[in-house]
């Protein structure tokens, strides 16, 4: 009994530790100036809903632009990454095919030897990608870990299914599109989530390669507003009373975290059900 209570208390504490910061940030972003002043800063108990901070950051200006940039990078990047990873994983899923062993080693060796930051920087800038959004996508477009997860999944698809399609004269591309992909929706969704989160969260790569602040992705803007303490540069809203800075900052945090929190539940049930666990277990 004591064990039960202790476990209940522990789990409640763990859940609260994750959710409380999110709660405080959302509530503060929706608080009015009076509520914030009264609380002396962050707000724990919501009093009213005041969306003026969101109106401010969405009325053009750097935050709006950064969100568009991040959305663009995430969409294009995820599409490129998922397409190329699925293709390569399928291409590597046939032991005994031409050069299979060598190609597999080529991919797996990336776990053991890797480039340092300086040579990578020289290669990317040498290719003229400085200030190009492709610099946020191409260097990290292939995650060999994701590739291995997909490959493991493809290899567990019954071979008879693919063989019978081959007898019917289907080529490999057709087999991949018509048979393998429909069977792999869940695992591809999880891999796509991993890639998308990676692109949405990109910060350091943008620090390295993007100097033009018209092309900053959202994490870069978040960092400069909140951690480096610059004030959000919001155009629009001339003459109207500015909402409190703290509310604006918290609103920036909310819009940066929102896509992750919103997409997460749809994909998360797959890895709880064991897509990743199964792959990890080998």
């Amino acid at each position, binding site marked *: 009994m004591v064990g039960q209570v202790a476990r209940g208390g522990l789990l409640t504490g763990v859940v609260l530790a994750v959710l409380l910061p999110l709660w405080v940030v959302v509530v503060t972003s929706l608080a009015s100036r009076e509520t914030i002043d009264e609380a002396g800063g962050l707000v724990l108990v919501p009093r009213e809903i005041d969306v003026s901070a969101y109106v401010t950051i969405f009325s053009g200006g750097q935050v709006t632009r950064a969100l568009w940039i991040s959305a663009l990078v995430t969409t294009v990047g995820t599409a490129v990454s998922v397409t190329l990873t699925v293709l390569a994983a399928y291409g590597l899923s046939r032991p005994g095919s031409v050069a299979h062993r060598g190609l*597999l080693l080529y991919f797996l060796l990336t776990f053991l030897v890797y480039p340092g930051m300086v040579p990578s920087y020289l290669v990317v800038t040498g290719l003229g990608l400085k200030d190009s959004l492709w610099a946020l996508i191409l260097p990290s477009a292939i995650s060999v870990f994701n590739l291995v997860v997909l490959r493991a999944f493809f290899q567990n698809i019954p071979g008879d299914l693919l063989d019978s399609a081959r007898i019917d004269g289907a080529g490999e591309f057709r087999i991949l599109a018509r048979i393998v992909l429909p069977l792999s929706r869940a695992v591809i969704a999880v891999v796509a989530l991993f890639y998308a989160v990676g692109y949405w969260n990109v910060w350091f790569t943008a620090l390295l390669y993007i100097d033009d602040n018209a092309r900053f992705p959202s994490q870069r803007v978040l960092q400069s507003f909140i951690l480096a303490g610059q004030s959000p540069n919001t155009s629009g809203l001339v003459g109207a009373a500015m909402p409190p800075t703290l509310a604006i900052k918290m609103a920036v945090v909310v819009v940066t975290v929102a896509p992750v929190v919103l997409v997460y539940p749809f994909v998360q049930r797959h890895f709880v059900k064991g897509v990743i666990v199964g792959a990890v277990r080998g």
Partner: protein
Amino acid sequence: MSTREAVRPGGGWETPDVGPGGASAAGSDTRRAGRDVRAARRRRRPGRRPPLRARLRRDWPLLVMVAPAAALLLVFHYVPTLGNVVAFQDYNPYAGDSPLQAFLASPWIGFGNFEALFSDPAFWDAFWNTLSITAFQLVFYFPLPIALAIVLNGILSARLRAFVQSVVYLPHFFSWVLVVTFFVQMFGGAGLLAQTLRDAGLQPWDIMSNPDTFVVLVTAEAVWKDAGWGAVVFLAALSTIDPHLYEAAAVDGAGRWRRLWHVTLPGLRPVIVLLLILRLGDALSVGFEQFLLQRDAVGRQAAEVLDTFVYHQGITTGNYGYGAAAGLFKAVVGLVLILAANRIAHALGERGVYSRS
């Protein structure tokens, strides 16, 4: 129709061996690959396979599929890996119009950068900072996902368990910028904790910029972000433990703690060893963005680790060859560490990250 012949079932493609899925973890991908490679080698007997031309005609679509990903890795992984040789140069970015020309025009200086590096106190500060943070986290971070997995595994209600799991996994998907932001809002000088302390008439202290407690702070951040996600692997391993073992132990009169000690922990042992090896191999990485983001707040003395050292030397100050030398040092030591840790694991009778083929 020879093409049709070649794609007949059994025309050379074996169904991949799925293998008995033991309780292993992340690194088993490498191991699985190793198994496939060995299986492929076994099959390579002269005369058993169709000639190369026929196989090429059969397999070219697979090669086409692999090509784009392989090309990206070539350009953005292997070329820069070879590019580590700038560590042996006095690389001058202005020696040419492009990095390539500058590379070709820069003089080779042998181990000059390394000699300078090893006599640079700032490098050793970063080195020892990194190692002490790794050691601290080995004690105060590493066991937490295991404990959390055991607690989660004990939740009987499937719905409650799924709920708690999804909550604790969530912060793994937040960026470091966000995680540090949350910590600033909670524990910073103007954060919720300081606010509450002030309201209670107490003197708040600023946890976020105190170099003395920085190691505790970064560990707390790492725990908040990743301990939940880290439990995934251990939960998978726990689900493979035969429930009969628990019943037998209970029948023999073993209490809750004895069952934990004699059934649960031995069941987790291969995974724990595997993750320890991976952590050891990564002993010189303690997280990069996390430290870069907080370096200015707490100062270089406490927050400079090897990765941030490489960044500041190699890129911010433009001392490319020097920074590359520090990066190469880290990569080589990491490779040696992981090979050594794996050898120790084999000596102790564990499977390790990969087995020798």
